């Protein structure tokens, strides 16, 4: 057993001690001789693209991702930020007809592009068939990954229709079909922490069946 020295501490004492330490450590870094450089305003770059059929013009710090442009500048908060590193798929949007991770793309790189977010697929009054199918099949629990799942699902069925092959296809030269196995493989870039996967696959199969 460890014999800890007896300490007499109070919250006030800890806070005061911390402050003193911070000042003592911090002080040498901010002497007049080595003052930190004044923050420079970041030059902005302008970009124009179309979001859900509406032309939008923005002046942005070039660092702004497409995801942040949509959420923070255009206030289209349907698209979600999950991992912000292209691993979870919550930020999936459709650009030029193809699904991408909006977190791994700079907004300024999308000059002239057509962007579709979950808000552009459907509205509460006029749901996209995939949105309706997700509701019908209970394809979500907390809902955070859902906009990305739905954008991805819509694009997946389009990819199958366009004949884009997948890892699980036995015959590469054949046209892919919207089987459960195909949809599971093609949706692997969209993570659902609640585990609604089986219902998502059923919602997709439902929509694929209607189109077949």
């Amino acid at each position, binding site marked *: 057993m460890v014999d800890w020295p007896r300490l007499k501490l109070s919250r006030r004492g800890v806070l005061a001690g911390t402050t003193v330490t911070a000042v003592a450590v911090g002080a040498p870094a901010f002497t007049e001789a080595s003052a930190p450089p004044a923050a420079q305003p970041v030059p902005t770059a302008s970009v124009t693209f179309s979001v859900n059929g509406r032309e939008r013009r923005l002046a942005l710090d070039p660092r702004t991702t497409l995801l942040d442009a949509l959420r923070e500048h255009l206030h289209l908060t349907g698209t979600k930020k999950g991992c912000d590193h292209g691993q979870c798929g919550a930020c999936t949007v459709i650009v030029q007809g193809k699904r991408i991770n909006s977190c791994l*793309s*700079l907004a300024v790189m999308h000059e002239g592009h057509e962007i579709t977010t979950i808000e552009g697929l459907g509205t509460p009054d006029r749901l996209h068939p995939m949105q309706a199918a997700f509701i019908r099949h209970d394809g979500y629990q907390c809902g955070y990954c859902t906009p990305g799942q739905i954008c991805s699902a819509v694009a997946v069925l389009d990819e199958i229709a366009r004949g884009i092959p*997948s890892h699980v296809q036995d015959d*590469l030269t054949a046209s892919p079909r919207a089987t459960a196995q195909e949809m599971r493989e093609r949706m692997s*870039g969209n993570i659902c922490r609640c585990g609604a996967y089986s219902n998502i696959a059923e919602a997709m199969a439902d929509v694929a069946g209607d189109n077949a």
Partner: protein
Amino acid sequence: MRAFTYERATDPVAAARAVAQRPGARYIAGGTNLLDLMKLEVETPTHLVDVQDLGFTRIERTPQGGLRIGALVTNTDLAADDHVRRDYAVLSRAILAGASGQLRNKATTGGNLLQRTRCPYFYDTNMACNKRRPGSGCAAIGGYSRQLGVVGVSTSCIATFPGDMAVALRVLDAMVETIDAHGQTRSIPIAGFHRLWEDKPQQDTVLAPGELITAVTLPPPLGGQHFYEKVRDRASYAFALVSVAAVIQPDGTGRVAFGGVAPKPWRVEAAEALLPQGADAVTRQAFEGATPTKDNDFKLPLATRALAYVIAQAKA
């Protein structure tokens, strides 16, 4: 992410000049790897040259009967190309085994060749890493090394090249075409494109500063059966522990390269000549001199078994 300036290139030589003249400048194409690393400040470019308008988006036949793939052709478009699916199936299979649908829609042929290692110590800026900060040491050596390299590594870095596409390109003997700031072009055999780390792990490839990839060319089709067998922790969307790209001819001869094991796609021609003798003979020679750690020595038998599975499929 550190601040940077951004320009959109309209001409390859001007782009090469813009990058060659500024030490902190980098190209950006799909951006799926670079932006990830910039957010973590593993990469800190001060200037980005966007190459998306340079037009390298075509796949065309070469006069030699091969294929010329523009550097900006996306992974999705390359894997879906009819000629590639029919004549270079190992390439389609490798691409489709990598990343996710979203990433493949953005990732480009040139960018994929330049993707950086996924060594966790390279990603963690608190850790020593000779690749990220030359001379700082290698925290992976003696650290958690399950995913890392078993052959061709050095005492300064045990990271792997993480990609799938390049492993197939190695089996196909692809050439990487480039242009530099003086307008000079050259063709680099894929075998010599990625470097072994040796004492300079910060340099992944033999490209000179500012040298720009314009295309990847494939020789005429090899025929045979094409395989890309990838073993990973999940059935989809994970990096390879071990992968095997192979083209097997009806007489049992063929070509084979391994991914997930070395700083570059690992192909040993003298080893693949032993294909008719079976997987054991091939991997014994291909992994001669391997220096696995106790965390990743499983990769050696795994490579043998993955290749044995490929050979069995070829015979079936």
